[in-house]
């Protein structure tokens, strides 16, 4: 069985979290570390936006400050995500690693298998949306999307009762894939929508209602079934096992190597904590 590294970096500052993902990609590209599954959390709770989103147009920075939330632009695509009560994961692996398909959607499916297995082990009837056979419409252009992620299941998205339960984003650079995403224990759509900008209050209300129907957190699902909520330690334990199973790999606990720590520090100051990156659009 292939040996992958597992690192848990705890709850960190937003810029640090993004810098560590990129530093791992770099170290893996150089052949210094094996493919890696990383778990992490956020301190403070943070709004992240996609690589190409327009910060000023989509984020209410006044509200963000009032709520004491952090902010960072991801290197991956997609839309705004509020990272609060969630387990965040990343998977870093070379495009040429055995078993990793060239097709983006296929690679997504393979790298997301661990999520599917994990939700099922928790007792949720999760499934992965397929092409179009399940009737879930895929957004085809940016114009059709709202600023918030989690509101539109696309291909190979994880859903429970038709609601999106995990949001993931991917990037590829220099032959290495980074996929990271959120496994939500709780979802505070009121808070999320209070820090996003909309044309007017009616639009905001409509979007938020729609979002409430299309997205769910693990504990929403349990509460709906009249079952007690799950805790973070249980979720971590289940998903650590399910990622190993989904990737067909043994996950060996390790830490970041000095080169990763060093590069992450540099990426914090030069990129992810820097206005020229966070407000570049």
């Amino acid at each position, binding site marked *: 069985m292939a040996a992958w590294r597992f690192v848990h970096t705890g709850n960190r500052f937003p810029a640090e979290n993004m810098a560590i993902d990129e530093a791992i990609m770099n170290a893996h590209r150089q052949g210094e570390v094996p493919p890696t599954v990383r778990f992490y959390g956020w301190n403070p709770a943070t709004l992240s936006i*996609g*690589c*190409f989103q327009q910060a000023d147009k989509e984020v209410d920075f006044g509200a963000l400050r009032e709520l004491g939330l952090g902010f960072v632009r991801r*290197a*991956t*695509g997609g839309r705004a995500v509020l990272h609060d009560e969630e387990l965040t994961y990343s998977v870093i692996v070379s495009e040429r690693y055995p078993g990793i398909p*060239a*097709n*983006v*959607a296929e690679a*997504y499916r393979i790298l997301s298998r661990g999520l599917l297995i994990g939700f099922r082990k928790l007792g949720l009837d999760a499934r992965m949306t397929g092409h179009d056979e399940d009737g879930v419409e*895929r*957004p*085809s*252009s*940016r114009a059709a999307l709202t600023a918030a992620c989690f509101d539109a299941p*696309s*291909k*190979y998205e994880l859903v429970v009762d038709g609601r999106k339960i995990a949001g993931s*984003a*991917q*990037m*590829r*650079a*220099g032959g290495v*894939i980074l996929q990271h995403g959120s496994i939500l224990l709780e979802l505070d759509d009121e808070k999320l929508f209070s820090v996003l900008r909309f044309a007017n209050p009616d639009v905001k209300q409509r979007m938020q209602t729609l979002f409430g129907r299309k997205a769910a957190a693990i504990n929403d699902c349990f509460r709906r079934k009249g079952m007690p909520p799950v805790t973070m330690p249980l979720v971590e334990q289940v998903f650590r096992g399910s990622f190993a199973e989904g990737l067909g790999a043994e996950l060996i606990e390790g830490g970041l190597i000095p080169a990763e720590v060093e590069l992450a520090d540099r990426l914090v100051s030069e990129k992810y904590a820097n206005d020229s990156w966070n407000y570049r659009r």
Partner: protein
Amino acid sequence: MSTVKPGLGYTEEHEWAEAGSGSVKIGITDFAQNQLGDIVFVEFPQIGQAVEAGQPMGSIESVKTVSELYSPVTGTVTKVNEALLDSPELVNSDPYGEGWIAEVEVDGDAGEIVKKLLSADQYEAFSK
């Protein structure tokens, strides 16, 4: 089934290059757009930016991933396809035509430079 357009130069990173007079037009191949899925955003290089063969010159965001765009040639960016700002899906629908991405002015004979890249036949064999 992806199409490969005869007469263009290709790279292993799935870009195509078409020789003009003193410049080379660049885009991504039909195979690449198929792999990426619905494209939602193209980040262009700056006009006037120096680019180097094999080095990143921009990014492409599809519904599911952000991928680097590599320049097949060395030179200076003179044009970008601004139609993609409103209609990035042109890269999906017409990758060798309306979905072109940038034009790069090259030093030397553009035709000779493009000939040094993979031929359509070589690329077809490579991307199978």
